[in-house]
């Protein structure tokens, strides 16, 4: 994925608050960019919910309902959350565990980066992926599955998917720190 070259405006006269905000924004932007560029991650975390939704929601179970809701609509919500769970667990859990075992996390900790910026960038990455997944699924549902969704309902799904990413992120983080890193931590050097 090619990106336009963006130069970071670094202004030494900026106040600490605006500098902190810029650090957060930079960290978030590059985390999202990094995740999108990592094809193995971006294709699988977006691809799986889309594939499953097409398979179970659009191809099979046509014209069937669960309660009063059409399967295509019901599973749209289900796979949207499935997608945000995948992005959070694999993106954050595995990503942070790798950063930790390789010593990259320590280098970040040793820098003046506010620790929250690292966590928040991971969270925003998962939220961004959730939004992408929900949008693709909704588009597929409307165009192929004849799902009718009011604009307000779509906004609500987006909001739920992005809010819902937060607990999954916590789960991912907890996993990354509970599982002992494979390579680091053993050697005292």
């Amino acid at each position, binding site marked *: 994925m090619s990106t336009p070259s963006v130069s970071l405006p670094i202004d030494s006269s900026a106040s600490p608050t605006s500098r902190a905000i810029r650090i957060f924004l930079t960290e978030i932007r590059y985390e999202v960019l*990094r995740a999108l560029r990592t094809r193995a991650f971006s294709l699988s975390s977006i691809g799986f919910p889309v594939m499953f939704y097409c398979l179970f929601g659009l191809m099979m179970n046509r014209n069937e309902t669960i309660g009063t809701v059409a399967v295509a609509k019901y599973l749209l919500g289900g796979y949207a959350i499935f997608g945000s769970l995948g992005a959070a667990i694999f993106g954050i859990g595995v990503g942070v565990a*790798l950063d930790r075992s390789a*010593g990259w996390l320590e280098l970040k900790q*040793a820098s003046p980066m506010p620790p929250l910026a690292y966590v928040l960038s991971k969270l925003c990455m998962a939220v961004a992926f959730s939004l992408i997944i929900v949008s693709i699924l909704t588009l597929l549902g409307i165009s192929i599955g004849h799902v009718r969704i009011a604009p307000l309902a779509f906004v609500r799904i987006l909001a739920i998917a992005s809010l819902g990413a937060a607990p999954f992120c916590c789960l991912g983080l907890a996993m990354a720190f509970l599982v002992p890193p494979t*390579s680091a931590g053993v050697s005292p050097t």
Partner: protein
Amino acid sequence: MPSAAQTVASLKNTTKRYKNGVTAVDHLSLDLSSGQVIALLGPNGAGKSTAVKLMMGLSAPTSGTVSIFGSDPRNPHTRLRTGVMLQVGRAPEMLRVREHINIFRGYYPNPTPYSNLVKAAALEGLEERFFGQLSGGQRQRVLFAIALAGDPDLVFLDEPTVGLDIESRRAMWAEIRALAARGLTVLLTTHYLEEADALAHRIIVINKGRIICEGAPAGVKSMGAGYRSETTGGFKIVRCATTLTADQLRAMPGVLAVSLAGHLTEITTEQPEAALREMLALDRSLSALEVECPALEDAFLTLTSEN
């Protein structure tokens, strides 16, 4: 504090014991003086990286104190004045070299100009590459640039030249010397005596978390040349074919180590004359006698293995 201007960082009687029972740093005290390049020299597992991590506030000491610029290393204001290069196995691979450097520059209010960093780390032409596409030596150079991103007053370089070819190593040495010339304080860990000798104003030899000796490179080297130094006596290596047993040899004056090399016995002794006199008296068949000053590497090996 008048001494604060002189000492920028110090460990005082610091011990670090890991949960698995390994004592990585054992009652270590050291001071880094402003504007100096200090080399922490020791074999693998000596506690060099742990000492650096203690000074960076990345791990808390089990006992003792750590102070950087007179305050806690975890203080954010302290972090703005330090830069660090750790042994990193993997960095985010899908970010470009330029992006990595700029992300770190953004953390500091007065970062080093981008072009200076690229030049200092010899990264010209690699700026648009993804980190994952770089060779080991190139990755090392990116990490070096990151360490300098904030125009720090104090830099920790943990094994900076690992994986570099000879040419890049010399280039990095020149850069480290240039840092010192600009008045930065540099703490460098290495297991190459040559590197410590080439760069440092002061060498601290550590093993198993303890200081074995420290001093100016000339002083540390002089131990190898057989002169007496402040902390440890000079020693020589005696090589000969002898029928004396290792236990007998160990009992002789000043003997530090006895080893067998082929049919020759090698004895490291601080009092070569006295030891030789005894050996010649006890073993009339002694032959193929050689006495030599240990080379620098030998001196280092002996220092670190005997303590």
